């Protein structure tokens, strides 16, 4: 198109042969968008004229489809620029409909990841320039795909899924909530993490030594607090309060130990703080049991000031409004529900109605009682079975269900995929590449809060090894609660495999 003068470099002329002239470009606006259907194949070549003609026709159709070039209206194209240092494509004109599911904004500019840009180039939506000249798709493949960005196999899987309509994002290991976070049901703060992942390395500003010391201490204190909160919620369960639940007996540690909440002591090394036990003696502090019907006191006295942080002063508490807020009404069950409850409770014994248990004042005494009872029950066991080196696995009457019984007598315990994974080191060969979201969620898809993906993709090929148990465990833990699918690439043909956890049934219903 640009080079009509006779140049001596013949190879260069070959390069230009696929450029369309302006009249061809103009004609191409009305080219058909239908793909011809492929006919039935034959079994054996018979050398017949009919077969040869059909082959020729298929080939012609084939070449026509392949030779067609992408011709787009300049107004429909989004202009973009390839930035090799950042390995990103920066948009220079407003994004189109694809912005809903692809690309990201940073520092006021719109960017596309290289695989997204290449896919959009292939769809004919974006024209990417480099050094003021437009990149062809071949150059896009050569420049955008590499081990540092996305490999060719990974791009093939990406393109395949995008063409089917899925939303595909790069996988970010830090965006997977840990088991603890999931249990707490914390909303994922994925936006910050995405920003952190894509920001380029910046020079670290020097951190003062004070700050470094305070941060581990602060972390430690919050950790202590959470430990103690968990601990305190468990203790009232073991305590019933027939007597007024008011007296808190102060015990053990004196005031000097309780300085952990004061910010003065900054130089505390982290190791020592973490190994220290919580400083309150919960065996002696009783907590008010408002829900139990057995306590009828009208108000709570103020707690011992030594248990309170700082100079806090708490007066007595009137219980009446709190009790009103608690639903302490007797449950009225229908006839059928009462029957069902009777069935359930036939063999159920309320542990709180046990006199001996009520006499226990704290956990230590309760555990002692349990131990004593266990020992007593074992006195009746036949000596020749139980006093030798090898003892039976279970006792008659000990188990109430098949599953319990099978658990007790099983020698090999079944394990699930997520067990014992913390000791596994991450492998170089098996990596999760993409998060995949389903096509029907595209309308409500928010890039800032994509939510839980439908599945995660790990790209491999038939030339490589089959994933072993180590790889599968490691990948499933990396992925959290989302299943991992293996996309196996074989020369453009992609097959998807996934492994599902399966538990053998152990209960007979």
């Amino acid at each position, binding site marked *: 198109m640009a*080079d009509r003068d006779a140049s001596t470099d013949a190879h260069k002329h070959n390069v230009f042969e696929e450029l369309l002239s302006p009249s061809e470009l103009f004609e191409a606006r009305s080219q058909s968008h239908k793909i011809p259907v492929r006919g039935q194949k034959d079994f054996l070549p018979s050398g017949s004229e009919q077969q040869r003609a059909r082959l020729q026709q298929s080939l012609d159709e084939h070449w026509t489809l392949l030779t067609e070039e992408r011709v787009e209206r300049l107004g429909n194209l989004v202009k973009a620029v390839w930035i090799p240092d950042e390995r990103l494509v920066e948009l220079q004109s407003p994004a189109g409909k694809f912005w809903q599911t692809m690309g990201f904004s940073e520092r006021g500019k719109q960017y596309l990841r290289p695989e997204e840009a290449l896919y959009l180039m292939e769809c004919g939506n974006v024209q990417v320039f480099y050094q003021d000249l437009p990149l062809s798709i071949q150059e896009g493949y050569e420049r955008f795909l590499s081990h540092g960005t996305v490999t060719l196999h990974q791009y093939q899987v990406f393109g395949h899924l995008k063409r089917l309509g899925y939303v595909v994002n790069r996988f970010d290991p830090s965006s997977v909530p840990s088991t603890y976070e999931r249990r707490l049901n914390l909303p994922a703060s994925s936006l910050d993490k995405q920003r952190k992942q894509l920001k380029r390395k910046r020079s670290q500003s020097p951190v003062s030594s004070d700050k470094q010391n305070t941060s581990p201490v602060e972390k430690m204190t919050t950790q202590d607090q959470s430990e103690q909160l968990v601990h305190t919620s468990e203790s009232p369960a073991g305590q019933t309060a027939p007597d007024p639940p008011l007296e808190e007996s102060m015990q053990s540690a004196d005031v000097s130990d309780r300085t952990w909440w004061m910010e003065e002591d900054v130089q505390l090394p982290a190791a020592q703080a973490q190994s220290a036990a919580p400083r309150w003696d919960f065996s002696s502090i009783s907590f008010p049991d408002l829900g139990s019907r057995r306590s009828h006191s009208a108000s709570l006295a103020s707690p011992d000031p030594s248990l309170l942080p700082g100079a806090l002063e708490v007066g007595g508490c009137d219980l009446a409004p709190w009790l009103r807020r608690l639903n302490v009404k007797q449950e009225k069950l229908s006839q059928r529900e009462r029957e069902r409850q009777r069935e359930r409770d036939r063999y159920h014994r309320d542990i709180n109605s046990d006199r001996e248990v009520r006499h226990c004042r704290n956990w230590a005494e309760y555990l002692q009682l349990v131990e004593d009872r266990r020992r007593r029950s074992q006195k009746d066991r036949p000596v020749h079975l139980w006093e030798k080196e090898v003892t039976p696995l279970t006792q008659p009457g000990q188990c109430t269900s098949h599953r319990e019984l099978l658990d007790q007598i099983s020698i090999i315990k079944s394990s699930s995929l997520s067990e014992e994974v913390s000791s596994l080191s991450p492998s170089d060969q098996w990596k999760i590449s993409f998060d995949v979201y389903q096509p029907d969620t595209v309308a409500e898809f928010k890039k800032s809060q994509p939510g839980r993906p439908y599945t995660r993709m790990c790209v491999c090929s038939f030339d490589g090894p089959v994933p072993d148990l180590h790889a599968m465990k490691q990948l499933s833990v990396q992925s959290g609660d989302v299943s991992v699918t293996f996309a196996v690439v074989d020369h*453009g043909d992609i097959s998807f495999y996934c492994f599902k956890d399966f538990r053998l049934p152990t209960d007979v219903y």
Partner: protein
Amino acid sequence: MAGDPAGMNMSQQSSSLDVKEDMDTKSESEHQASKDDLIDISFCESTPLLWKVSDMKRCRSVGVIGALVGSLARQPRQNVRLGRPLELLQEEALLLGDTNTAAASLQPQDCGDEEVHSEAVRQYEAGLESSYKEQCTLALEDKKTVMRRIMNEKENGTDDSGNAIRDRLNALDQSFRFPRSAMAIQLCTARAGFSHCPEERSFHSTDWPMPRDERLDTRFCVYRDLRNKGFYLTSAGKFGGDFLVYPGDPLRFHSHFIALCISMDEELPLSDILAIARLGSNVKKTVLLCSPRSRGETGKDESVEGDVVYSSLQWSSMV
């Protein structure tokens, strides 16, 4: 059974979208070094790719099929039919290299010369400008033709709207607007060469970025042998084998064999043989175990044609 060279030429002439201007310059180029006539293989890490349709046609004429892995220009958002690039098997690339039909183009370097580059940018933009002007003219002509046709139709009718259209037609030369955003732009698939950067090419397949190991050698031996016997071969990962063997062009025929390449001294567990035989009978294809004869047996330095031993597996009943 072999490829149809006569058919290839016919299809080349019938394809209308090749630029006709360059046909005369092409005959000039034939007098130039034949090295410029080689098929251009571009490597994406270790995967050989072909981008130009002329290269793909030449490949197919020697029986190299490859697999299309890109989006189809006509309908990019579907997976039924894919478009360029054509991904070649490593064995196919080796065959093309060994028969001196292809050369690999190495990673493009940025053009260091500032002047050459700005000249290239100027040329590109000048090209865009002239294309715009030409498209303007074409659009104007097109619109006039459409309006004349409507006018003719209306003149046959009874109403007065024909006059209104005639007036519009006459005013069209002044009032016609063809905004730049309406211009048609080509998004090139293969490298267009705008940057005038000199391309570096490698002519020896030993320099190509493909890791040569024993497995590739075995497979290449088998590939070359089957190709010389006239079969067409494609990849067979999904069928548990190395190659699918077709009696004719894969566009028209079903494959007959699944070829599994094993070296002569490799031990194969019986369970693997049973698995592959089962698979073959399920898909109604015969499984071929192919082993190149080792050098010691043939007494030659390099393995030549006809040096592969084939065994086929077939379920048979005990009679």
